[in-house]
């Protein structure tokens, strides 16, 4: 090398990191220095240093092009993705449309089952009053007919922490397991009909969580307050309910998560019916066919449904949701 002999070459301690040193210490394009040198030399030699017309125009065009390019890139990056927004809008419209469809169909279903009931009533009233009575009783028990009577209203409200705008606390929400606990306690206390937020519970009902919403029979409940109405003798219901584990459980929810609950007896409650329910696979067993003795356990006949009702709303994963909360 050309280093003067006798004098040890001072090596930089960070010599092994030439790339980083280069980037850190010479961030300026070396082209600028070279060009400045060339200009200085031209000035010394007495040549003109300015640019001529054509190159000025070319540079101007190039600069404008680059400006346009950068600007359009920046605009493109800042703009919301049009396709995403459009797809979202389509989905939103579909949701609204389908929801409207469901509403009309539900209304139609209710109207039709009313009509069926009315026709049954008129047809059977004259021909077979006994059968009509049985039908009506079954309708009340199975939840297909609207009922009214005295009873108890248990209401649960999400805790304040669940409503806070900035940091909603999911554990302060009422969950399916909480509603299930109350519903089961009410069945056990002798309730004859129960509805959760105007969704009548039947032998086919399920109460479960889907995301943050509680679904009863696939219908999401709006919250944040859930009213569970039970028909039965108010005093007996209240006493039996108070003896069950539910009040202590609700108290725990209240103290730990701020979930509010109240129990109020009412002299007149009216619960909606869900209309006729279609069973696709279950058929009455033992009716003239005794070859399947084992079926009785699975296929409970209509008249024994009352006793099985309390269990049906329990068949969901209450233990899972409990774990989630803790």
């Amino acid at each position: 090398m050309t280093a003067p002999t006798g004098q040890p070459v001072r090596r930089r301690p960070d010599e092994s990191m030439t790339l980083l040193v280069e980037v850190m210490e010479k961030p300026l394009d070396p082209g600028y220095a070279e060009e400045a040198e060339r200009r200085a030399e031209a000035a010394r030699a007495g040549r003109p240093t300015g640019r001529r017309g054509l190159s000025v125009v070319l540079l101007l065009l190039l600069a404008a092009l680059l400006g346009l390019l950068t600007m359009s890139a920046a605009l493109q990056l800042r703009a919301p993705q049009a396709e995403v927004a459009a797809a979202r809008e389509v989905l939103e419209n579909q949701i609204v449309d389908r929801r409207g469809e469901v509403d009309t169909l539900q209304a139609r279903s209710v109207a039709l089952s009313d009509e069926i009931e009315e026709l049954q009533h008129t047809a059977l009233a004259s021909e077979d009053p006994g059968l009509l009575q049985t039908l009506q009783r079954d309708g009340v028990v199975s939840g297909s007919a609207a009922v009214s009577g005295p009873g108890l209203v248990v209401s649960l409200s999400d805790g304040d922490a669940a409503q806070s705008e900035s940091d909603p606390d999911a554990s302060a929400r009422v969950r399916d397991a909480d509603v299930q606990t109350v519903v089961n306690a009410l069945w056990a206390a002798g309730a004859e009909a129960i509805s959760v937020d105007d969704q009548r519970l039947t032998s086919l009902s399920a109460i479960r969580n889907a995301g943050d919403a509680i679904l009863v029979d696939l219908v999401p409940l709006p919250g944040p307050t859930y009213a569970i109405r039970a028909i039965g003798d108010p005093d007996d219901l209240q006493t039996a309910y108070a003896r069950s584990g539910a009040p202590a459980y609700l108290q725990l929810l209240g103290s730990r998560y701020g979930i509010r609950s109240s129990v109020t007896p009412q002299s007149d409650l009216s619960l909606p019916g869900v209309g006729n329910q279609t069973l696709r696979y279950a058929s009455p067993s033992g009716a003239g066919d005794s070859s399947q003795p084992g079926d009785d356990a699975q296929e409970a006949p209509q008249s024994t449904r009352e006793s099985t009702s309390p269990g049906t709303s329990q068949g969901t994963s209450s233990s899972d949701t409990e774990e989630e909360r803790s």
Partner: protein
Amino acid sequence: MIAAIGLVIGVIAGLVLQPTVPVALQPYLPIAVVAALDALFGGLRAKLDGLFDDKVFLVSFLSNVVVAAFIVFLGDQLGVGAQLSTAVVVVLGIRIFSNAAAIRRHLFKA
């Protein structure tokens, strides 16, 4: 001076015309913008150093953008697009930082 005027004209034209970038080029836009920023800071520093030259500035601008986009394109083809993008952003980022620091020293003497 010519470069600055041209850039301003281009930016205004971009704002007015709102051109759309072809979809195929869109993955390279962020890197291209970072490269453009690097060239801009380099130019500003050169100006303050008294070394500024329109031609050098514009050529470095163009080559920065093209090379950065090309590296990312190459990375995409080789399956290391994300890593190469990171590399480009790191290098350009350091350069932008040091140029910005030099500009700051020029302007505030601190």
